């Protein structure tokens, strides 16, 4: 099965019943599969006039209580930035698939990249937080899409599956479970205000349209009733801190990663395709002491994972960009961080990583 198809299947399994999208290479197969499947499951597929309309439509759909998603790639992703912020401030659960390709701009439409990792976190104006998942196998395209929907419901924020052309277009066999764990929309309790929260419950219940909540939803700074309150400093400050905090404060619970070789001095931190390459060299050279962190969720960044490697002398971060998540690593550790950018469409080869390993090994000195 192709990665993109696995993603669409995962969405359907998670209960997605509304897809609004716009074609773009290399994510189009997600939409095409949805076009085929939605009528069969009683859901809605609609091809919108552009990506702005796509994300708008899924936010609208989500307010009717339906799980909704869209899929795109770089240029379309850039167009979604304004309404990603809208989903964040209105706390609308939505899932956005970005099958990354080579940027900037139209760049390399058919080639793989991971250049939108910072964008998915910081691409919309103002402060808020989001969750981003990064599959490295076709199986994970399926599983992490399910998980994306669950996290969207749990945290009421935009959740991104940040895949790439390599995994999106890769075909490998996957196991589709008979059933998956699904988190459903948590309806607002009667009598509660739409955005009423407290420190323990920073995520309010959802006042689904048509259920009698008579909610007013706005992208303006709003109070607990959901009413605009745009010049009150405290309302705004509280709201933004909550939007950021509800995700960031839970980052170690949200975290999803594998680690290996925790006693190593040289540690690779990867997400997406490079994870496979690190595993390949670890398999090929079982005697080398290689540490490995594979992040399946990069945002919020679970910086505590770095502490699992007490002997680390260097973190090598191979990315198909100029070094985006590497920046985050550097921010959290005094240990040396080596950025290993790979641009142009290819994933890191075992040679690439072995060379980096050898280089760092030589710098560190000492036996193996």
């Amino acid at each position, binding site marked *: 099965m192709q990665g993109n198809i696995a993603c669409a299947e995962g969405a359907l399994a998670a209960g997605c019943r509304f897809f609004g999208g716009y074609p773009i*290479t290399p994510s189009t197969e997600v939409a095409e599969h949805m076009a085929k499947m939605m009528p069969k499951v009683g859901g809605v597929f609609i091809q919108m006039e552009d990506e702005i309309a796509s994300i708008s439509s899924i936010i609208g759909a989500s307010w009717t209580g339906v799980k909704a998603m869209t899929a795109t790639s770089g240029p379309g992703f850039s167009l979604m930035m304004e309404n990603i912020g809208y989903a964040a401030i209105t706390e609308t659960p939505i899932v956005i698939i970005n099958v990354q390709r080579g940027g900037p701009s139209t760049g390399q*439409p*058919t*080639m793989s990249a991971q250049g939108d990792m910072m964008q998915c976190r910081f691409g919309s104006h103002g402060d808020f937080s989001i969750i981003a998942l990064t599959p490295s196998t076709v199986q994970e395209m399926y599983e992490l899409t399910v998980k994306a929907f669950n996290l969207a419901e749990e945290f009421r924020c935009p959740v991104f599956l940040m895949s790439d052309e*390599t995994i999106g*277009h*890769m*075909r*490998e*066999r996957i196991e589709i479970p008979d059933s998956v764990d699904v988190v459903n929309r948590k309806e607002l309790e009667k009598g509660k205000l739409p955005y009423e929260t407290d420190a323990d419950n920073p995520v309010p219940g959802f006042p689904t349209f048509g259920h009698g909540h008579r909610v007013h939803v706005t992208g303006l700074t709003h109070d607990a009733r959901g009413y605009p309150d745009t010049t009150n400093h405290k309302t705004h400050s509280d709201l933004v801190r909550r939007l950021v905090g509800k995700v960031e404060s839970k980052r170690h619970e949200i975290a999803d990663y594998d680690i290996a070789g925790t006693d190593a001095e040289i540690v690779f931190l990867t997400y997406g*395709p490079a994870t*496979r*390459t690190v*595993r*390949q060299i670890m*398999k090929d050279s079982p005697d080398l002491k290689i540490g490995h962190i594979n992040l399946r969720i990069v945002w919020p960044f679970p910086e505590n994972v770095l502490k699992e490697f007490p002997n680390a002398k260097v973190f090598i971060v191979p990315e198909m960009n100029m070094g985006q998540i590497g920046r985050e690593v550097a921010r959290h550790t005094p240990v040396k961080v080596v950025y290993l950018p790979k641009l142009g*469409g*290819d*994933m890191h*080869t*075992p040679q690439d990583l072995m060379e980096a390993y050898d280089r760092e090994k030589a710098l560190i000195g000492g036996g193996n």
Partner: protein
Amino acid sequence: MRHEVLFSGFGGQGIILSAVILGRAAAIYDRKYAVQTQVYGPEARGGASMSAVVIDDEQILYPEVSNPDTYVIMSQPGYDKYGAGARDDAFVIYDKDLVFSKPSCRNLPVPATQTAKELTGRTIVANIIMLGAVVRSSGIVSEEAIRKAVLDSVPKGTEDLNLKALNAGFELGAKDSQ
């Protein structure tokens, strides 16, 4: 054992579909591990197209072909770009109507496009002929598996046409490779 098969040709020749079918044959019908990847230009036709399948008995980690043991080549530029660098013990099978160079390693020229035209009046099934030929001459997947995979993958109504092409490919593959 890890097999790396690389397909290359013009866009529009069905290069990617060939790899998909081979991968499907391996993974679904031969119950091996297989990963299929590709490189293609933005243009639907004209540009160079490359796709690849890695087939293994174990789980496949690094998914790209780094040093293919089998090449299926359907254009001269495709040969120049990929086939020309084949390692000595590789096997190169190519459409002899479209590739004019002569590989130095073990190889098999197949008149796939010509045969397709003769067989069906259209060149569109040349890739299936090549598939038949490579399976027969390399044994990389079983013939039963490839037959099922072809049937799975082609548009409804064209099954017979494609089986005809596959069988023609088997025959062309039977001829001793050089």
